[in-house]
């Protein structure tokens, strides 16, 4: 979904191509350029001495810069995660991460083993099916609705046990695939915050998540530091808008944060539910809708009016969100041209409530 209040042009298909998304973001930000220092890398962020505040050094400033608050919006699809597996370094075939996948034609006639079953794995698998030699081999650790049963042309395998110098790959169930040309890891990314002192311990040692946040946003120990866009399996633009609307009100002094103990309790409860690993920031429907409701409620406690509106998901949005995978499938099967859900046969009757 677009940023609330900033629709895409009406001629853009229901699920826009990436070129249309970057155009949209350029249009969206046309009045914000004066605030942006381009080609400027933040090199370090440390707590100011004396406190409070933060001291930044950048690639373009000779003197450190002081700020009362810092918002981190650096994303988490930058640093590929490729697991350490026995034999990985001596495997003669090509090892590639989905970050570096561009076109399926690069894999024409190759025997390809795809590892992973996330959004990018599913998207890449569809394309590879047309090009690879034989069936596409895919390691699927936890099957999902879209892979049960697996699409035609995919041979599902369990986790890799080891890669071998003769070009074969063995699996935990004892199966062996010989002559594997390419192992393509669609195994996700690491959370990285390289500009903070390592001693702050902001991420887990293996980069699975950011720690000590409240609601994935405020740093509990000093909420003048915050993070945007950490949650995954969400609709990112409206989610980021809700988070930003909340942070802006807190930093303006119009919304208060609970006591630190209470913020800590939130994280403990989340860890109980989801563990402290890579699932910590993951939502999916309907939990992402509940998360947005929670942010909306906090935003609406603001003293005084005005400010950027948060996303306000009601029956229509939840109805669409709950059907998004089905709508997208129909969109793709009908040539990726549809401009509305209605022409794909998805008509909201106004009676459906969130499950």
């Amino acid at each position, binding site marked *: 979904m677009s940023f609330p209040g900033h629709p895409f042009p009406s001629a853009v298909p229901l699920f826009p191509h990436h070129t249309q998304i970057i155009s949209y973001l350029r249009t969206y930000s046309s009045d914000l350029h004066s605030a942006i220092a381009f080609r400027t890398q933040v090199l370090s962020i440390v707590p100011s001495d004396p406190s409070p505040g933060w001291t930044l050094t950048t690639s373009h400033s000779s003197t450190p810069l002081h700020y009362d608050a810092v918002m981190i919006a650096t994303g988490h699809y930058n640093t590929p995660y490729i697991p350490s597996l026995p034999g990985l370094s001596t495997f003669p075939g090509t090892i590639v991460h989905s970050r570096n996948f561009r076109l399926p034609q690069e894999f024409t006639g190759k025997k390809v083993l795809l590892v992973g079953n996330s959004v990018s794995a599913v998207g890449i698998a569809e394309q590879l099916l047309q090009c690879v030699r034989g069936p596409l081999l895919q390691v699927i650790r936890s099957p999902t609705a879209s892979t049960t049963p697996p699409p035609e042309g995919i041979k599902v395998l369990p986790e890799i046990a080891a890669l071998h110098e003769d070009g074969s790959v063995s699996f935990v169930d004892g199966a062996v695939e010989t002559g594997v040309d390419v192992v393509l890891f669609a195994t996700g990314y690491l959370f990285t915050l390289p500009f903070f002192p390592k001693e702050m311990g902001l991420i887990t040692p293996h*980069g699975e998540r950011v720690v000590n946040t409240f609601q994935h946003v405020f740093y509990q120990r000093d909420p003048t530091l915050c993070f945007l866009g950490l949650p995954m399996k969400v609709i990112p633009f409206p989610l980021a808008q809700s988070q930003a609307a909340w942070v802006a009100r807190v930093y303006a002094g119009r919304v208060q944060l609970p006591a630190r103990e209470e913020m800590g309790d939130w994280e403990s409860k989340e860890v109980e539910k989801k563990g402290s690993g890579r699932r910590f920031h993951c939502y999916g429907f309907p939990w992402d809708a509940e998360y947005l409701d929670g942010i909306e409620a906090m935003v609406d406690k603001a003293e005084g009016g005005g400010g950027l509106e948060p996303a306000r998901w009601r029956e229509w949005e939840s109805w669409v969100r709950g059907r998004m995978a089905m709508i997208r499938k129909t969109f793709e099967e009908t040539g990726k041209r549809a401009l509305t859900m209605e022409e794909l046969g998805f008509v909201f009757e106004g009676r459906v409530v969130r499950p």
Partner: protein
Amino acid sequence: MISTGPLRLIPALEAFNGSAEVVWRKLGGGRSVEDICLTKIHAQVKRVKYMMTTLPTIRRVAIVGAGASGLVAARALREEGCFTAIDVFEQRGDVGGLWNYTPQTKATDVPSVDPNVVEGPDEKGTYISAVYDNLGASHHICLLDKAV
């Protein structure tokens, strides 16, 4: 920041609500001193439990990254109208973060498990994006609020 001794906070509560006499009357003066103290303690425990985190005054804010999240952050701060500096730092030459498609790629270290090892730009200063040629918005990315 927060005292764990509610008894010591009673004077603060009284200052907050006015004089001790007002508190006395509010609590229905006439009850025993012990009762009143107990009620005050309960009130204070409740206050401590729901006490808010106080932040220093914030006027200068830095935003790291001009992708979707950084852009909407700048807009949200601007709408508040009370910040004297809203500075966005972006390593690329354009907005949009990961949506900046790059035809070129860069080999990733194998394995890649250390969050302290972060890839820099290529020799031309380009930061490699995860966007592939045929990528359209997935169901996790974008369903439109269409202009009407």
